[in-house]
């Protein structure tokens, strides 16, 4: 898991004097809202990878045709107990075989780390008061044991792993 500091992160919003630019010019390291992406996707060059902030109440499957042009998908936790983005990340990794980065932002807490890692997130922007050391510990807790279900890293459920062992 990569712990991201939002201020030093190279991906930047395309903001003009009056707020987000409705139709930003192509540039490296653009962090675009879904609306901005819809505005630019038809005319941006194919070889300028973008990062997209995707809301948790939209259908993630609509991104599928664009995924080769996307380096980073940022998924949202407006509240940490709102678990929609776990399903979105799972679908990106398992169904659409997305190889770019998936980042969690919003109310991201230490005790979500395991769920995030297992559904396909590999970057997090944690809430300011959260401890990176505690997050790392939370990630390591079940590592020696494993889980019953498959997940994005180990797609086989335990019943297949044990018979293979």
């Amino acid at each position, binding site marked *: 898991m990569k712990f991201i500091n939002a201020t030093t992160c190279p991906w930047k919003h395309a903001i003009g004097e009056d707020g987000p630019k409705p139709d930003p010019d192509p540039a490296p390291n653009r962090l675009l809202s879904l609306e901005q992406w819809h505005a630019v996707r038809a005319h941006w060059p194919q070889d300028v990878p973008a990062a997209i902030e995707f809301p948790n109440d939209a259908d993630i499957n609509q991104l599928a045709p664009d995924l080769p042009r996307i380096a980073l998908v940022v998924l949202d936790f407006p509240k*940490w*107990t*709102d*678990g*929609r983005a*776990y*399903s*979105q990340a*799972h679908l990106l990794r*398992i*169904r659409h*075989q997305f190889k770019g980065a998936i980042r969690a932002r919003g109310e991201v*807490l*230490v*005790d979500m780390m*395991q*769920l995030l890692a*297992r*559904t396909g997130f590999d970057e997090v922007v944690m809430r300011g008061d959260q*401890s990176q050391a*505690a997050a790392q*510990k*939370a990630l390591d*807790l*079940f590592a*020696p*044991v*494993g*889980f*019953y*279900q*498959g*997940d994005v890293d180990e*797609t*086989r*459920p*335990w*019943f*297949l792993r*044990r*018979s293979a062992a």
Partner: protein
Amino acid sequence: MYQYTDFDRRFVHARAAQYRDQLERHLAGTLGTDEFRALRLQNGWYIQRHAPMLRVAVPYGELSSRQLRQLARIAREYDRQPDGPFAGQGGYGHFTTRQNLQYNWIPLVDSATVMDLLAEVDMHGIQTSGNCIRNITSDAFVGIAPDEIVDARPYAEVLRQWSTLHPEFAHLPRKFKIAISGAKEDRAAIGWHDIGLQLKKNAAGEVGFQVFVGGGMGRTPIPGVEINAFVPWHHILVYIEAIVRCYNLAGRRDNLYKARIKILVKAEGQKFFDAVNEEYQRILAGDPAGHEQIIPQAELDRVAACFVDPVGVKAAAAVQLDTSDPAFARWLQRNVHGHRLSGYRAVTLSLKRIGIAPGDTSADVMDTAAALADQFSHGELRVTHRQNLVLPWVREADLPALFQAARAAGFATPNAGLLTDQIACPGGDFCALANARSLPLAAEIAERYQDLDELEDLGEIDLHISGCINSCGHHHSGHIGVLGVDKDGTEWYQLTLGGGDGTKLAGGTVAGKVIGPSFAADEIADAIDAVIETYTRERLAGEHFIDAVKRLGLDPFKTAANAVRVSTAKA
């Protein structure tokens, strides 16, 4: 019973260690109260009116005597209020309508130690609370019922493992309950669950599930509807994944009371069904890892091997019992049930006793039940959705001895299925959610209906009492249901008639109908009396209460109940 593997054991210990880490961070002040809340809930810790409540999972109701002794030890040593206004309270557990066990008085500082003690006997509180897939319930007679089509236990266990700490489904819009029945008679109330699974065999003899979705009680009681007539058994994890994913993504999160899957199913109907069935096909056909979620025959066989009959149990010649003692004969008729093996019976140990709340069981009583299980039932017990215990492996020849022992221990009230075998939640005496107390009414009914001849004459009546609209006491499904409501800080009680939990007697999954405005606390027991008197006056020969309600309609019962109103009588 399911035998824990080394993996299962390391897993529950890891979970206990994870919880201890969270508790320590909470006590040290680095994990806030709100955030700790959602974490402890998914381990069964719920803050009640006076102290935390711990709900321990009893998967599909199966319990060993060893586990029950450990539960007794926890009650004795940890379920205690050392000081404060409730000093000395505790020392017992409460068996619930979802086959679990709750403690009411364990101090939070001891909670991690209790999780370790549970892990020692292959138990836990994982997902017994919170907005996740809850402990999976089944028929208390699963594996032994004469009307069984398929033994549901291996499937229930595979589902338990799949749902445990599922990373995608840990924070659903709302709680999510699954029940499985493998018998002709639905004794698991599957129609009242978010997902109800009915095991079936098709014409070719293959096993599969009839799947119901969107059942639930609460504020808006809705019976589940069939979403798929036959899902092959080895696809069931995929099918449930499809349902829960569609719900996780589309279920409402803006209103707590509209967040259950039943609201989504009701709002979208066929559109939701189509989405689920499409998702099911996409996982199977399109997802590279989809086929890995299909249950292999070898895995079903491995789990099923845990549920073979105990060593030494085999069909035997039926025993002619001496029934000259009327008390024994009555107990035999009421609390002793059929078994798929000749020469064997299942026996209800009643937890409905005068002066004790339904389902409440002290540490000593748990130990006694464990001893009876060892002596008469190969160390195995079941927790029933009616809040009793069942011994599943009793030899017919042992019934007279078991009767004596059960009677001496207070387990032999011959009322299984009768009026005083009532279901009640802990209500306002304990629960922070409750609007009214349920236990004083349950006690009042138990007091009034002590005459066993009268009870037997009234026949099978499901009386269900909930202290609030969350419906833990299943009032919607009672032939007689009572709901506690709060108006201006006073307790009131709404009376419903004609509900059904899914059994043939009740006519399936039916929500009862409210008769008139709420009754005052000092009227409700009289109102129930009046309803029952109306039944005894109007019934046809051999007619059950529930059938009389259906035939007569609500009016005669309503009129009789209204006649007992005092403070709520219209001027």
